[in-house]
């Protein structure tokens, strides 16, 4: 984990301005980041005294860049959308325990809800490189909120990308969990990873537990320090309270008290 000064390469609205893609030049972070880790960004406005934790979507070690995909949730993230290229900001990272797929995994299912697709992208790349047959389910409310579909389709050499939308404007009409139930019934997976709304993750965890596969979830909490000291971001687990920042954000689903 480093505290470093990052430079904005680009900042672009995606999905009608509901999501933003921020590219930062931060070579030490790009070199170190592992799938599922996040970075903690200091905002430029003095009134924002807390940093914002954002998961890493893509990393380019050669270019020294990180791509972050985020949803505008409040004033802080709205201010993040105002960043322009060449601006500098303090970034702490990479932080946290990322995904930990078993070495022996042969077939994996990744399930991303909304902006939760982003932290699954580097994982999908790693599994794909290892020759793990990887299927991905990406869900969103509507078709124009599917920010990551094209990049996942390009990435995967073998597996398939399944799409769901709440309104049926693209792919299966319904929730990711419905497609996940079908796939889990039809196929034998030895690894399932999910990120997105917590109710979705909870349902995926329960379904996967029945199938016997290892399931990892990525949990989001409000965070202050981002280094494990303040105990703001705790998650209830069967082993007591754990910190989403440094003990997570990825947890074995069996450990989480939902």
């Amino acid at each position: 984990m480093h505290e470093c000064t990052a430079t904005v390469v680009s900042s672009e609205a995606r999905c009608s301005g509901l999501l933003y893609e921020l590219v930062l030049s931060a070579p030490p972070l790009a070199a170190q980041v592992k799938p599922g880790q996040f970075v903690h960004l200091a905002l430029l406005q003095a009134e924002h005294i807390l940093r914002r934790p954002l998961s890493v979507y893509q990393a380019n070690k050669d270019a020294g860049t990180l791509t972050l995909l985020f949803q505008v949730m409040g004033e802080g993230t709205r201010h993040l959308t105002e960043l322009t290229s060449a601006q500098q900001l303090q970034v702490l990272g990479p932080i946290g325990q990322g995904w930990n797929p078993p070495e022996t995994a042969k077939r994996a299912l990744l399930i991303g809800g909304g902006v939760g697709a982003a932290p699954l992208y580097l994982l999908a790349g790693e599994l794909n490189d290892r020759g793990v047959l990887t299927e991905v389910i990406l869900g969103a409310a509507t078709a124009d909120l599917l920010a990551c579909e094209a990049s996942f389709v390009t990435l995967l050499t073998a597996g398939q990308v399944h799409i769901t939308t709440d309104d049926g404007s693209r792919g299966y009409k319904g929730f990711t969990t419905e497609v996940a139930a079908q796939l889990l019934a039809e196929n034998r997976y030895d690894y399932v990873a999910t990120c997105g709304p917590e109710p979705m993750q909870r349902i995926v965890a329960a379904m996967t537990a029945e199938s016997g596969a290892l399931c990892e979830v990525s949990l989001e909490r409000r965070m202050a320090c981002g280094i494990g000291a303040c105990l703001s971001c705790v998650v209830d687990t069967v082993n007591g309270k754990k910190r989403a920042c440094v003990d997570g954000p990825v947890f074995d689903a069996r450990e989480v008290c939902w």
Partner: protein
Amino acid sequence: MSVELSVNLGGLVMKNPVTVASGTFGSGREYAELWSASPSCPGPLNALGAITTKGVSFEPWAGNPGIRITETASGMLNSIGLQNGGVEYFCSNDLVWLASQNVPVIVNVSGHSGEEYTKVIQRLEREEAVAAYEVNISCPNVASGGMSFGTDAAAAAEVTKLCRQATKRPLLVKLTPNVTDITEIARAVEAAGADAISLINTVAGMAIDAQKRTKVFDRGVAGLSGPAVKPVALYAVYRVYQAVDIPLLGIGGIRSACDAVEFFLAGATAVAVGTANFSDPLRALRLAEELSAWCASEGIQDIKELRGALKDG
């Protein structure tokens, strides 16, 4: 010009007047690890005049359920609830590590009753690594104990007296600003044997989610900290400095050397960096150096010259 930065905080000798606010720094280990990985880091943990630990209770405390923090304009609200592993865990883990860091350790002590505070101190008396205690009678985030002791002069004095009987080490008592007259509480804990007073703890506040029409925090109340509370803290230090003879540790929204100097002028002997540790994890460590530079540029040879040195007009 070399500037004399050392201070004596109620018997606790600090090589510079900078510590951290309890609860914002864990036991320092996470920060030390980050610092050691940062090329721009000015030094190890002992760049601080002292480290103040997170609150330690006798039994383990789970802390509060639900949302624990939210940002406010130039501040934040927290409802952590003093989650900690209890004094035995603290001694065999945090304190073992702290003992090797070559920095005075102020242990922040929490309890639900006078007896619990005493039991924590009695256990810590067996540990050489402890330099001083800071008794927390001011946390708004626990149901019994905490702030309920700090809002009543007689109760504050009683807890202070019990702690005083348990130790000869420097005893700081941390006060809440959520009272009608903080000088009354300050005088009571001074009379009961406190060696120094830390002020302020967080300001009671709340947050409401307009969309959901719900309280953000399960307990409703939470503690406000950060730059937003600095004027409140400064005024508390200013008033208490005139009311008591024991030294004061100023806490509340301190980020810069200039902030710290304002607290010295109001009467503080030392200062603690709190919420600023979250926005800049290197902040506390850099502050002593910045204070030295500030004094040098202002022709101040000894930081103690600033204490209570407000000019008229």
